[in-house]
């Protein structure tokens, strides 16, 4: 039970982390275009974030 709670919390926290990371990256991109996109595609991060949110919702 406690283990499940820890997993659920971790998934939720990872979702929050990915959301904040995506937000920060978008803000950085707006300030300095191509600072992130030159290195990697934000779509992958968005997809990860979306999956994290979905799993978090299912687990809840």
């Amino acid at each position, binding site marked *: 039970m406690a283990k499940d709670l820890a997993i659920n*919390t971790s998934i939720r*926290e990872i979702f*929050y982390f990915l959301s*904040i990371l995506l937000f920060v990256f978008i803000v*950085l991109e707006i300030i300095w*275009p*191509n600072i992130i996109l*030159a290195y990697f595609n934000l779509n992958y991060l968005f997809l990860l974030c979306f999956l994290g949110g979905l799993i978090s919702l299912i687990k809840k």
Partner: protein
Amino acid sequence: MIKSFWLKWSFLFKFRLFLGLILFIIVVLFLYLKIVPFGRITYSRDYTAKFNSGKGFIYSFTPAERVDLKSSDAPLMIGDPIYFSLFTPRTFDKAKMTIVYRDNLSLNKPLVEAGVLVDNTIWRYDLKPIDNKGLDYLMLTWHKIEENGHLFLQKNDNYSSLAEWEKDLARGELKGCESGPENCLAVYNYNPPYNYQMSNYRTAVPIVLDKPLRGAHQFYVYLKNEVLRLDMSFVDLNQGLKPAPIEIILSKDNKTITTRRVDDANLSPGSGLIEEKQILIEEKNLAAGVYKVEIKISDDVVIKKIISSVDRLAFINKVWPVSSNGELTLYTDADYLQVKALNPASLQDISFGGQEFNLNETYRQFDFKTSAIEQIKKIKLKKDDVILENNGVFAWAPNSLFNPSLPKVDRFFSVKTAAKYIVADYKKPSEEEGFKTATVEFDLKGAYREKGKYSFMISVPGLKIEDSTKDNLEIYEIKIELRGRTLWQKIWQ
């Protein structure tokens, strides 16, 4: 102590702290890559790699029709030139480009050059040599000296060093060159300490060039204790949407003497309403010698008229006559002509050096080579609006024609010419199992950068899609090492 501190916090807090730390590290890493605090960074693109190819910085080649992406793992350059952009997070001072390629070019395409865009008004690229098969061949057959990064080739072993040769050149007396240094010397990517002297000098007379020329042009004028007065009239066609400023640069030996600029308020972009503009350059007490006048304008501007105080006035490499009535006659010193028509109404038969050549397609560059032996060749156009280019000079009258620049070891250079000495700033590319690697360095201080991107060009003069040969340049990798000011230099200097 640390253990008790660590145990005091909940799992959630510690996990959040951990993720927060990762977020901080990622943001700092991207800021580091943006600022490049040590002023040095390298970007590379491996064109055969499927992943991690580096395409975020070095963009794909354009235009797409000049690159074949299907026939090989690496892109094949099949038309000249091709361009690519380099995104940089900040400005840099120097770029060292290393290119790995396979040369599938025939001998009539001996040059490979790369350049960075330095002027976006006239689309001028600062070109550097990658490969020159003509020089590679002469290195094997002529006497070779490499001194101070320069390549010095002699047909006969007359000099033991380049310095000794340069001393003789400054005096205008080269061994074995009785007819003057300009007749037995060729250069490539190098400007020797040489002052052109006109052999058949006569007092200048004023001339009026009233045949309109479209777009950027450059010309030489030769002065000897004369006043230089250039009264130029321009017409802004206002066909394009961008502003069309006019800039004139008068220089001698690459040193600017004076500039004139007329900005364009761009009040009626794309309207087709013409605007007339005037620029006057008057310089007294100029030392005798050759002066270069660079007219930097876009193709939306026409040079309507030039009233010059000197008649020794020769256009460099290119002329684009427009809006003239009737036939046009020009003169050039080169034995080939590259001709392009943009308008179907300009298709015609061109007489060059007494021979007829057919210009029968628009937007295609035709190469016409004459077998005429005269030094000055006549070009007769029945219609205007054709772009004429070569590596020589053009003039409206044979008396005006003079060419102070030395012959270049380009794709039209022949070892059968009178050249006895060649000086070049060139390093042969290294070759391993058919793959060639060449390195060139560019000065980025004056380079044009837009939206964080520098524009580069790779050129193989003479390489054409439509010539139905299988010639191509197979590009495997491009690596660009950038150097600039460090963060501390930016803050304190």
